[in-house]
């Protein structure tokens, strides 16, 4: 009987406990702000000895400051961060790296802090950096790199990527390069060369001499290979170029018009369109055995193919409905489905590396737009409008698009220019990418360090 008594008491207690938990008030927070996160990039500290040795080697006065300014610039251009002015910093870099006084950083409203140290270890550049959560007063990340001193810019980009990833939850895109067609001279007599540069415009290099016309360079998503189209004796040829070694290779001659070769996501195939017997269709070529396969078979003009990142689908444009529109099909050419239904002409569809969106160029009422839509064609958003712009290419994390924009020529045929621009998915963060010459047809590489 006693057992039952205890049991009842226990039962009553158990049943009454939930009553207490009902009293916990829940508040749903479904909105926040999208303002850039204020953060402080403290200059990386450096001892005098290392400073002098690097100054001799790299001709840079203070390599610590230079690296931190690369990080600062990268984070700023992303539009997601607001690096605070160094004038407001209260703590010296060397002390901040050991243990930041969070109250000081809190005072200037920094929510995150980057500190670090540069040193010379056996003539190598060693960079340590730490990311601090100022509000929580704790370290979020600490990493160290050792590399040849000439790689100092890349170290800045890698740090930016790590910080970006840690604070936003997606991979960064700073340790990347952009290949583009550098243009010089008057519009009627343009010299076009292949050029490559870091994503921030530094380290610009020309890869071809400009004797032949080059078009549509595209990066292999898995390595530092580029495919592009060049005219040799007035015949279009598809080339492969290894950027690391400089080796160039002809993939094949394609008589007639060939357009826009692009790699498959695994880098083993090239997909392109070329005109045979007066009809443009989409073809793939296996790079190992050079077997060409016809993917579309339609009397209309099918061009600009681009694979989805999983390789299962292909988006392309076609005028089979009367106007040029965007279509999606399986990678074997089956189940072709039109996805763009808006007013105007759609072109150059490019599948995002994230897989969720397709970027495109749209021409409507004489204006060019760069926009994105979901892969089923819904949610079309136009990000930017201009007189002439086209050829968007995605950053490897699928957040930023780079494209080129041309200006009108005046009546004398002067004033023409072509520049590279970038815009992020919000549509607010639009920037011109500085290049030494005019530029067009940019393509963004994948991350150099994975």
């Amino acid at each position, binding site marked *: 009987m006693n057992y039952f008594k205890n049991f009842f008491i226990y039962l*009553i207690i158990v*049943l*009454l406990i939930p009553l207490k938990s009902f009293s916990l*008030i829940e508040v749903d*927070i479904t909105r926040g*702000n999208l303002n850039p996160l204020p953060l402080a990039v403290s200059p990386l500290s450096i001892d005098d000895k290392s400073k002098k040795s690097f100054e001799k080697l790299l001709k840079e006065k203070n390599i610590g400051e230079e690296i931190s300014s690369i990080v600062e610039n990268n984070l700023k251009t992303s539009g997601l961060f607001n690096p605070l002015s160094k004038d407001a910093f209260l703590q010296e870099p060397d002390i901040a790296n050991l243990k930041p006084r969070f109250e000081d950083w809190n005072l200037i409203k920094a*929510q995150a802090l980057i500190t670090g140290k540069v040193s010379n270890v056996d003539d190598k550049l060693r960079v340590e950096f730490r990311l601090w959560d100022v509000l*929580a007063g704790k370290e979020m990340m600490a990493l160290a790199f050792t590399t040849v001193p000439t790689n100092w810019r890349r170290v800045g980009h890698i740090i930016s990527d790590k910080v*970006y990833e840690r604070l936003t939850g*997606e991979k960064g895109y700073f340790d990347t390069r952009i290949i583009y067609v550098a243009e010089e001279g008057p519009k009627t007599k343009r010299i076009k060369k292949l050029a490559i540069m870091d994503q921030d415009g530094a380290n610009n290099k020309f890869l071809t001499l400009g004797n032949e016309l080059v078009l549509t360079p595209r990066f292999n998503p898995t390595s530092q290979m580029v495919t592009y189209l060049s005219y040799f004796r007035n015949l279009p040829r598809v080339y492969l170029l290894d950027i690391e070694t400089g080796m160039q290779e002809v993939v094949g001659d394609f008589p007639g018009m060939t357009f826009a070769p692009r790699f498959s996501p695994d880098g083993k195939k090239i997909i392109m369109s070329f005109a045979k017997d007066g009809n443009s269709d989409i073809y793939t070529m296996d790079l190992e055995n050079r077997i060409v396969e016809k993917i579309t078979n339609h009397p209309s003009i099918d061009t600009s193919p681009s694979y989805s990142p999983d390789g299962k689908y292909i988006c392309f444009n076609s005028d089979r409905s009367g106007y040029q529109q965007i279509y999606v099909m399986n990678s074997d050419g089956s189940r072709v489905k039109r996805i763009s239904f808006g007013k105007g002409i759609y072109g150059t569809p490019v599948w995002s590396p994230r897989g969720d969106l397709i970027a495109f160029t749209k021409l409507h009422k004489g204006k060019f737009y760069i926009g994105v839509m979901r892969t089923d064609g819904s949610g079309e958003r136009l990000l930017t409008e201009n007189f002439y712009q086209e050829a968007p290419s995605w950053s490897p994390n699928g957040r930023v698009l780079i494209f080129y924009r041309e200006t009108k020529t005046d009546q004398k045929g002067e004033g023409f220019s072509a520049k590279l621009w970038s815009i992020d998915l919000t549509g607010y963060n639009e920037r011109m990418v500085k290049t030494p010459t005019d530029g067009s047809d940019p393509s963004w590489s994948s991350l150099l360090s994975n």
Partner: protein
Amino acid sequence: MNRSLITSSVLHVIVIIITAMSLPFLSKKPIDLPPIVSVELIQITEKTNIPFAPKAKKIIEEVKEKEKKLVSEQAPPKKVKKKKPDSVPMPEDKVKKVEKIKEDKQSPEKIDNEVKQVSEFEKKELFDPNNIAALIDKSKEEKANVVNKTDKVTQDQVKNFENKGLSLSEEDALKAQIFGCWSIPLGLPYNENLLVRIKLELKPDGSVIKSEILDHVRMNKPGQGFYKVLAESALRAIKLCQPLRVPSTGYERWKELQLNFDAREMLEG
């Protein structure tokens, strides 16, 4: 056999009774809300008056001006009436017109009075905390009354709302504050579950004693790296917002609070 039957039935009966007692809200229909609404109205004034007092003043002044304007705009028609004219001006009509005009002229004052009344009414409740110094002695009595009133209300409210949620205005105040503090990490995948539940223990002034992420296990699961980023951003928001804008009364009610941060709506939109 019999004994076990009896114990079983007794047990069942007890369970049913306890359930009926401890879960009464199940049987209740949410019809008896009206009293809550009325109390909330008072809360709204109690809460929102202070910051909006100057605003209210402005609005009242604007109303005044508008009314004046309206009056002046009404004036022209009178002239039109005069112009109107060829119709034979009967002496009686004239008298009437004069009277009308007089009335119209007086109308601004009337409206003024009305507005003043409104403003005084507002003042009674609006100004008690801020303008104590500004109010002259004679208003002390009124003020005392108001204080008494609000005291009564809060006592009732504590009784009524023990173990119940925040009122709408209280919740809105808290939400609005945290909306401003929460920088949503933009890189999150928006087709994932982006809900972070954080349980807070609060001091009476709204500062946080303890914050705890309820789905802590998920933080370190592979492939859920974005969740950690999201959770950290939510914790940052709470730290940034401290002290939280909590109601001035009923500490027992909200000393423990759960905030559900959901980024999906923002990222999808």
